[in-house]
């Protein structure tokens, strides 16, 4: 009797185990904010939903939101790995060392870390070339500004954000040589109060275009209240503020990548890679350009978008000088991704910007 029940139990366990192996792939997601933030985490969670929609019963997803970047993240990842996750997406730069630590303990689990630079046998890194979207924004901003003052709300002075400022600035100046950028650092990714204050200050200083590299819709609301100011959605479409102030947006579109990586785990073809995709691969989306933008500007912005997408044009194409006047890229040269002066670690402004990178 006893032996029989043990055997029965073992058989049951076997079916369960093989069942899991053959049937469902477990995918975990670690989020830095709440899924309802309307920006960064919201878009990652839409990516998760896309995975569920694509694979149905064949996947089981789990997520934990608002995970602080530190030992808590390490615990959450370990917990997911212990529960049998096959693939774990860690969706914030601050999870970098934790991801590497946990991955070393679970060599059979695959990890995908967003926006970092540390890889290992079972850790891939992925990020999006948001700066391509910034080029399109800068182009529209340069055309649309009447005061020739463009406001920019920065989050933190890190390469990602500095790249965005440079990309927007050179494309605004290209169509409007008199354009000036005023930059305010909010030192936050998501704080509606601070973001609204920053937008109001910029508008008071004469900005009639406000670009933001923070995730809330507060700057949109501030621009709407002020009247003749235009804005761009950040991270998510923010279409609710269209057709004005929001005239277009940069949309993070993680779904296709998440589906492809999950598929790779299912097929057993997953390998550690470094992915940095832009408009062309669909990782960066340009939200609809609204009727508030003249047809001619809309057409040239879309042409710029398409040339970035098909690779015929690079956002940073020389001649481009650094702020101090020294040469960064010679005529016709395009920026390298890595290296001392590469895009990945960009820490300097380009010629013409009159503020300084805070240090």
């Amino acid at each position, binding site marked *: 009797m006893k032996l029989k029940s043990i055997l029965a139990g073992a058989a049951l366990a076997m079916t369960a185990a093989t069942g899991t192996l053959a049937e469902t792939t477990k995918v*975990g997601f670690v989020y830095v904010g*709440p*899924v309802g933030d309307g920006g960064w985490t919201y878009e990652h969670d839409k990516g998760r939903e896309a995975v569920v929609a694509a694979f149905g019963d064949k996947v089981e997803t*789990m*997520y*934990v*939101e*608002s*995970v*602080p*970047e*530190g*030992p*808590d993240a*390490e*615990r*959450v990842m*370990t*917990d*997911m790995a*212990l*529960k049998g996750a096959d693939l774990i997406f860690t969706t914030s*730069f*601050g999870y970098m*060392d934790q991801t590497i630590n946990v991955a070393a303990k679970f060599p059979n689990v695959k990890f995908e870390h967003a926006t*970092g*630079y540390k890889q290992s046998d079972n850790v891939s890194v992925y990020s999006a070339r948001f700066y391509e979207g910034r080029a399109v924004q800068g182009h529209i901003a340069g055309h649309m500004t009447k005061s020739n003052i463009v406001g920019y709300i920065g989050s*933190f*002075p*890190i*390469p990602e954000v500095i790249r965005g400022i440079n990309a927007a600035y050179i494309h605004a100046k290209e169509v409007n040589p008199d354009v000036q950028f005023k930059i305010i650092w909010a*030192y936050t990714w998501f704080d509606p109060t601070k973001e609204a204050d920053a937008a109001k200050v910029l508008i008071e200083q004469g900005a009639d275009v406000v670009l933001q590299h923070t995730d809330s819709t507060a700057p949109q609301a501030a621009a709407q209240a002020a009247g003749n100011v235009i804005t761009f959605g950040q991270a998510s479409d923010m279409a609710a503020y269209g057709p004005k102030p929001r005239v277009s947006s940069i949309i993070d579109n993680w779904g296709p990548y998440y589906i492809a990586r999950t598929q790779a785990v299912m097929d057993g073809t997953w390998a550690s890679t470094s992915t940095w995709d832009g408009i062309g691969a669909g990782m960066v989306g340009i939200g609809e350009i609204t009727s508030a933008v003249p047809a001619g500007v809309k057409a040239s912005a879309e042409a710029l978008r398409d040339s970035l997408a098909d690779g015929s044009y690079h956002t940073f194409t020389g001649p481009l000088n650094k702020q101090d006047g020294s040469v960064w890229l010679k005529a016709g040269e395009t920026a390298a991704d890595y290296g001392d002066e590469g895009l*990945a*670690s*960009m*820490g300097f402004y380009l010629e013409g910007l009159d503020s300084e990178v*805070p*240090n």
Partner: protein
Amino acid sequence: MLRLEKRPDPSKTWGYLAPVLAVIATMIGGGVMFALLGKDPFEAIRTIFYDPLFSEFAWYYRPQLLIKGAPLILIAIGLSMGFRAGIWNIGAEGQYIIGAICGAGAALAVYPLESALVFPVMILCGAIGGFAWSMIPAILKIKFGTNEILVSLMLVYVAEQLLASMSLGLMKNPEGFGFPGSRNLQQYASAHNAELWTGTGIHLGVVFALIAVIFSYIMLARHQMGFHIRLTGESPKAAKFAGVNPNKVVIYCLGFSGALAGLAGMFEVAGPSGQISIDFNVGYGFTAIIVAFLGRLDPFGILLAGLLMALTYIGGEIAQSSLGLPSAAIQAFQGMLLFFLLALDMLTNFKIKRTNTEVRI
């Protein structure tokens, strides 16, 4: 009708009973909330309170309780001293940050020197950093009569800005490709606050937390300063007649809590966290206030309360990933704990009486 009548002396029974009842009430209230969210309340409560201790993976969660609980206990012990004397240090979060910056700063300044002296110096710097930060509200209070609640709280935001500045500037990892955040101290052997025994979760911060518990127990029970603190809190007038110097009590209470918070920050940055980063602080300084009250400002009570709080964090995360509970529900659940505790605390100081005035023969 029911009426509240003040007890001549706080009830001892209720003092011990209130936290226990608060936990039970939280389980019931939380269970109702989880049920309303469409989850099985029994499974949710079991996941939060039982799974971290006794489930299949408890071998991993149990040490995590110590890692999560140690900073809470260390900070709460310090805070409880002041709270007993009616000195309200709300800014432990800031002192925690400054302790971490000073401790990590000491290590990064001598990197890559390997020496047995590095870690003791870091401990000292961490404690001094937290102490110095808490002296700002202390001295302002003594000299100008400012309110230490406001000053210490505001200094948290100053400390956060300083932390961001350090992660982006002075302490930025020179090999970090321009990304924010310092070197990882876990990879710097002399500065690493490693586990003393692998797999137990016990690092030096856990040991310090236990020492702090015992120290503050002896202090309150046996030492003159402990007596002065208790007297100041219970009866400021009597304290004055007894010759207690109120300024000394302010300096001592704020300084002690600041130093312990600084130590907690230093042990965290050198161990579990590993690096100074913009989002290094995760609210231990504020949660410790709840822990101090949940533990009745009693050293051993705080020890238990810190572990209980750590349990709700760890269990809460497990519930999120396995049951799909939103993190806001977990936070509301933790909030309920304090809410019920404060509500039930009333019974320590008040009796419920009927107000009908029928004459008995």
